[in-house]
C-alpha cells in the first residue's frame, strides 16, 4: 500500500518522459529567466511529447515555438543566455543539431575563453540521440561523442528517470553550456525517481550494479542493455559477476570511478552505440589503459555501433547497434580468456 501523500517528496515510479517533463515544469515555475524554445515544443507538445502541456501552463513566450532554423534558434539561445535569461533549447535529434554545430562549437564553447573570461554562456540544450525506432540514417545516430570532444561544453546523458528529473536543474544552475542527450528509446521506460533528491551532479559516473569479474562501461541507451547483459552473465552456467558503470557525464569523463572499478575487476568492456572509429569508446579504452595498464588482465574490449549509416529495416538496424548479446559475449569472452571468474 502506498502511504505517500506528499507529491513533492518520496520515491515514485515514473517514465523517463514524465521525469523530464516534471523537471522542465519545475524549472519554468521556479525561475522566471527560464524558457524553452525549439521546433514544435508548444501546441504539438514536442516531437517526443516531452513538453506536452507546458505551454498551456506557462504561455507561448516561455514555451516558444521556433521555425526550422536550428542554427538561428540555438544562436538566439546563446544570445539570450548572454542577456541574462536561462534558455532551454530543444533540438529534435542530434542529427539536426549538425545544422547548429557552428553555434555550439564555434560560439557557445568558445565565448568564455575567447573573451578572456568575460562572457559565460549559461545555455542548456536538450536533444534526442540513438537508434532503435526504425527512423533510418538521418534520425538515428549517436553523435554525442563528437560534442564530448569539445572543451567548453558539458555533455551529459541521463540513462534513468531519476537522472532525467535531476540533471536538468543542475544544468540550469551551471554557468556553462550543458548539452543533455536523451536516448529516444528511453522515454517510455519507467524507474524510481526520488522527488526530494535535488539537483544531481553533472560530472560523475555511477556504479549501477556491483560485480568483481568485469567492468562494463556504458552510457545513455546502452546502460539498460549492459544491465541486462550483467543479469545474463550472472545467470550463466559459469556465473560471471559484472559491474556496470553508467557514465552519466560524457564531458568531463569520470575516469576515477572507472579506474577504481577496473582496478578491482582487472577487465573492462566499453560499450557505445556510436561508431567505433574515433568514438567515445576509443577515448574510454585509452583512458582506462593509461590508468590501469598494470592491473588489466587483457586489453579493453570495445562493443560499438557497426560502421554503417543506421538502416531502416528492423533486422538491419538491430544488427547495426550493440545488443545485449553482443555485450554478454564480449564480457564472457574477456573473462574466459583471462582465467575465468574469480
Amino acid at each position: 500500500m502506498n502511504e505517500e501523500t506528499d507529491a513533492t517528496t518520496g520515491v515514485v515510479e515514473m517514465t523517463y518522459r514524465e521525469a523530464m517533463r516534471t523537471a522542465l515544469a519545475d524549472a519554468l515555475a521556479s525561475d522566471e529567466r527560464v524558457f524553452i524554445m525549439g521546433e514544435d515544443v508548444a501546441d504539438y507538445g514536442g516531437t517526443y511529447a516531452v513538453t506536452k502541456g507546458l505551454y498551456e501552463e506557462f504561455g507561448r513566450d516561455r514555451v516558444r515555438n521556433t521555425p526550422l532554423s536550428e542554427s538561428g534558434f540555438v544562436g538566439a539561445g546563446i544570445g539570450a543566455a548572454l542577456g541574462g535569461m536561462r534558455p532551454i533549447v530543444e533540438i529534435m535529434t542530434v542529427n539536426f543539431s549538425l545544422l547548429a554545430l557552428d553555434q555550439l562549437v564555434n560560439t557557445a564553447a568558445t565565448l568564455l575563453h575567447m573573451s578572456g573570461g568575460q562572457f559565460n554562456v549559461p545555455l542548456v540544450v536538450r536533444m534526442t540521440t540513438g537508434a532503435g525506432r526504425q527512423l533510418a540514417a538521418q534520425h538515428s545516430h549517436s553523435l554525442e561523442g563528437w560534442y564530448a570532444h569539445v572543451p567548453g561544453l558539458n555533455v551529459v546523458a541521463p540513462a534513468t528517470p531519476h537522472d532525467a528529473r535531476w540533471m536538468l536543474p543542475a544544468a540550469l544552475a551551471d554557468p556553462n553550456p550543458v548539452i543533455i542527450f536523451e536516448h529516444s528509446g528511453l522515454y517510455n521506460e519507467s524507474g524510481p525517481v526520488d522527488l526530494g533528491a535535488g539537483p544531481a551532479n553533472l560530472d560523475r559516473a555511477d556504479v549501477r550494479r556491483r560485480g568483481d569479474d568485469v567492468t562494463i562501461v556504458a552510457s545513455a541507451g546502452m546502460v539498460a542493455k549492459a544491465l541486462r547483459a550483467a543479469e545474463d552473465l550472472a545467470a550463466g552456467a559459469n556465473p560471471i559477476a559484472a559491474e556496470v558503470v553508467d557514465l552519466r557525464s560524457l564531458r568531463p569523463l569520470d575516469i576515477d570511478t572507472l579506474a577504481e572499478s577496473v582496478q578491482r575487476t582487472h577487465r573492462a568492456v566499453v560499450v557505445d552505440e556510436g561508431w567505433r572509429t574515433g568514438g567515445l569508446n576509443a577515448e574510454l579504452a585509452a583512458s582506462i589503459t593509461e590508468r590501469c595498464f598494470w592491473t588489466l588482465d587483457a586489453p579493453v574490449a570495445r562493443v560499438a555501433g557497426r560502421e554503417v549509416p543506421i538502416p531502416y529495416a528492423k533486422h538491419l538496424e538491430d544488427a547495426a547497434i550493440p545488443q545485449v548479446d553482443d555485450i554478454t559475449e564480449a564480457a564472457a569472452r574477456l573473462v574466459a580468456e583471462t582465467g575465468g571468474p574469480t
Partner: protein
Amino acid sequence: MNTDPLAEIGDEYCRRLLQDMIRIRVFEERCAELYGQQKIRGFLHLYIGEEAIATGVMNLLEPHDAVLATYREHGHALLRGVSASSIMAEMFGRATGCSGGRGGSMHLFDETTRFFGGNAIVGGHLPLAVGLGLADQMLGRRGQVTVCFFGEGAVAEGEFHEALNLAALWHVPVLFVCENNRYAMGTSLRSSESQLDLALKAASYAIPAWSVDGMDVVEVTRATQRALASVRAGGGPMFVEFQTYRFRAHSMFDPDLYRSRDEVEEWKQRDPIATFSARLVAADVVGEDEIESMWEFARDETEEAVEVADAAPLEPIDTLEDHVLASEEVGS
C-alpha cells in the same frame, strides 16, 4: 525650417564625429605598421575607408545597449569606450588585452561596455543579436537596443536569413547594420548574389530596411538616428545597409588582385575623413589647425597605446586552461 544637416546635428557633434573617424584611421594605420614589424600577428583586418559607419552609429548608442561586430572591429571597440591601450595589448597578445590575450584582433570583447565581440564566423553573431534582443524583451528592459554589425558577405549565409526571420517574427529590439564594402574577401557581391539589393532581402522578412551612403558620416548619423528611434520605441528590428569601401586589402595576407587600382582610387576620392574635413572647413565649423590637432590627439592616443601594450606582461602559461569553463556567473 532648418534643413542643413550639419546644423541639425550641431557643430560640437560634427567635431566629435570627425575626431572619432580620425582616431580610428590613425589607430588602423599604426596597426598596419605594427603588423609589418611583427608586433601584431595572426589575421589583421583594417577598417580604413569605412570609418564613417562605426563613428556614426557608435556615437548614438547608450551604455545599456549591446554591440556585436565582425572581425574588422577595432574601430567599433575603440568608439564603444574600450581603451586603445587594451585593444593594442590584445593584439600584442598581452595579459592586459581586452580579452586577456586569448582573442587577438578578431575577438575584442568588453563586458563593461557590453561589447559582445568581434566574431570571425561570418554571419555567426546575427542569431546572438536576436537572442540578446529577446532577453531585453522578455526581461522588460524597454528602450535597450542590440546593434549588430556585419558585412555584405554575411547575407549569403543561412544564419543571416534565419536571424532576420526570427528577429521579425519575435519583434526584438535589434538594429542590423550591414557594412557593404562590396567584397567578401575577394568575392564581389555581383559575382556571388543573385539579388544585389540587400535592403530588399531584409524587407522580405518584413523588416523596415533602407540603403544609405556609408562614406558620409552625416548620412550615417541621420539614418541611424531614425532607425534607433524606431527600435527603442518598440518598433521591432530595423536594417540599414551602408554602402562603403575598404581602402586596404581584406587582411594583411591579401594581395588584392580582384579589384582594379582605378576602382580603389575612385573610392578614395570619397574618403569619409577628407570629405567631411573639407565640408566642415567650408562651413566654418572647424579650422585647418583644429583638424591638425585632432590628428595630433589621435596620434598621441595611439602611441600611448603602443607604449602601454609594449610594456604589458604576457599571460603566464600556467593560466592556459583558464576560462574554458566558468566556476560562476561572469559578465552579462
